């Protein structure tokens, strides 16, 4: 993890991710917020690549930046009379305080705990060349039950979404 390219990529991508995430909070327009959210997702995908998780990065691009954001766009467009100003509610101060407190606690913990890390050759061994096979084996091996449950969950969500927004023709 000490090649200069990776270090530079980490700082640039984390700036992009955090900056866009802050812009989601600060922007005055809901559509702008969606666009910044997508920028944040893409920065996150880049960070996944620096962690040598290519499959997850591409899946992140496909699912979050490609599908979930479009769903949000549709939801915004289907609620035309609702406010688009991305305004804060009454709980803005507690919300921000809680978020900042959480970030501070996690940051403090992350920096001060002596994590059991791998280093040197073991770390190089973890820079997977091909994660797809491994993930496939893991999903259909030890996590088979969870995998099936996830597929059932997806099917239920699909049907649920259709049933929820279906208009009665009667």
């Amino acid at each position, binding site marked *: 993890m000490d090649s*200069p*390219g990776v270090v530079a990529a980490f700082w640039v991508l984390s700036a992009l991710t955090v900056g866009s995430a802050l812009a989601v909070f600060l922007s005055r*327009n809901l*559509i*702008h917020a969606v*666009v910044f959210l*997508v920028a944040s997702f*893409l920065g996150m995908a880049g960070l996944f690549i620096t962690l040598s998780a*290519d*499959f997850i990065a*591409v*899946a992140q*691009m*496909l699912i979050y*930046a*490609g*599908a979930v*954001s*479009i769903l949000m*766009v*549709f939801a915004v*467009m289907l609620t035309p009379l609702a406010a688009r100003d991305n305004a804060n509610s009454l709980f803005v101060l507690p919300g921000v305080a809680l978020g900042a407190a959480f970030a501070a606690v996690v940051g403090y913990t992350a920096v001060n705990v002596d994590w059991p890390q791998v280093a040197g050759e073991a770390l190089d061994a973890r820079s997977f*060349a*091909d*994660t*797809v096979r491994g993930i496939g084996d893991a999903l259909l091996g030890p996590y088979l039950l969870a995998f099936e449950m996830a597929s059932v969950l997806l099917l239920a969500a699909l049907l649920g979404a259709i049933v929820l927004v279906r208009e009665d023709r009667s």
Partner: protein
Amino acid sequence: MSRFAAWQALRAMGPASFPIGVRARAVPRLRGLRVAGALAALVLVAVSIAIGVVVVSGVLDGRWYDLRDLGIAMAHLRGRLDERFDPAVSYVASALIGATGILGFVGLVLLVLVWVERRVLARMQIRRGPNRVGPFGLLQPVADAIKLIQKETIIPRGADRLMYYLPPLLVFIPLMLVMGALPWAPRMIYLDLNVGVLYVIAVSSLSTLAIFMAGWSSNNHYALLGAMRTIAMMISYEIPQSIALLPVVLITGSMSLGGIVEWQADHNLWLAPMLPLALFTFFFASTAELNRTPNDIAEAESEIIAGFHTEYSGMKFGLYYAVEMGNATAVAALVTTMFLGGWSAFGLEEWVPPYAIFAVKVSAVYFLFIWLRGTLPRFRLDQLMAFAWKYLIPLSILNTFVVAVESSIAARWEVAGVVSLGLITLFNLGFTIVAARAWTRALGYRPQRERLLRPRLTTAVGGLLAAQRLQREATPDSASGA
């Protein structure tokens, strides 16, 4: 003689006698021309023989001047750089060279394809197409670009500035990223990812949001309508497009684009006959993703002016136009890579540079796109969505299931590859025909029973339906059967 009859007489004399433009004056034939032509042909033959000898003798293989695969020259250059400099230098240098190559290729393709598309489309519509600027009108795209650059860019009142400026640039990014992942030759891949197939799908899905930004920020009803139609269509067609690639991955056992092409080269087989249903699904869904006729719901000039880029003028519009061409090229390249063997051509790639083979195949697929555009009418929006959700998605899921069963059987069955692959091909061809027919019948489509005896001109409103009604009235006995 009426004007119509005169026109018909002119038509009968063939297209060359159209009274369009000034006929070129007959050039007095130069005497030396034939001699020069013969000499040139001789030189060409000699050069071809020399190339053949050099290729067969194998002195080229692996040398830096083996231009059949530019990746070899690149590898040598990187080796030289690594000897003298830090590895970062060679990395940056090769990245720059590759990026320049891709950019240059895209620019060239955009310039040429605008001309090709307009000329071919004009031929299909029995007209001439651009033929004034330069020889054969070849400089027409340049003239268009200069014209577009000179035009004033108008920003609509009430437009969202930032989101109005960004999309023409943003739509280029997915195009470039897809172009970077294409395998041009065995070692000529800029970005050979292990997850290439998924990467291509994911990256091309990013352009949806740029299109939405363009439509929304224009502050125009038609632009927003076009954008929402585009998003609905692209989201729907992304599903069959990505499911159609699953059989390819199942058969080849690789998700990298280079690996897929290598599998086809090793087995001397293109995947097109093996997976006809997947090919059709991918091809059709791609035309929808590209907003091309027959699926150009997004632009539909006759309905919503120009869709999401209604309010874009000048070079911004030109960028959208260019991206459309470039995306079509990229999809043609993907079809070539996945289904038509990429750079492989049954051993021909030993002789001809593989990237030339690849380019020829891509042009052929692109021609198919133009052909579709010249032939088919536009779908209605509901028809298009119904086709995706009711037809393409179930069929492609079924196809994936069938191919999964086949490939797992083939993996366990100890038999020569020719036999198992041949059986899979035959079965899939039959399965495609049966499944497509059965599913259309299950959805309630019946092929037309009554024969239209001859085309009838009618002045009644309603086009073909009115013509059929008139014909039914004329022949009452056949109407009872319908």
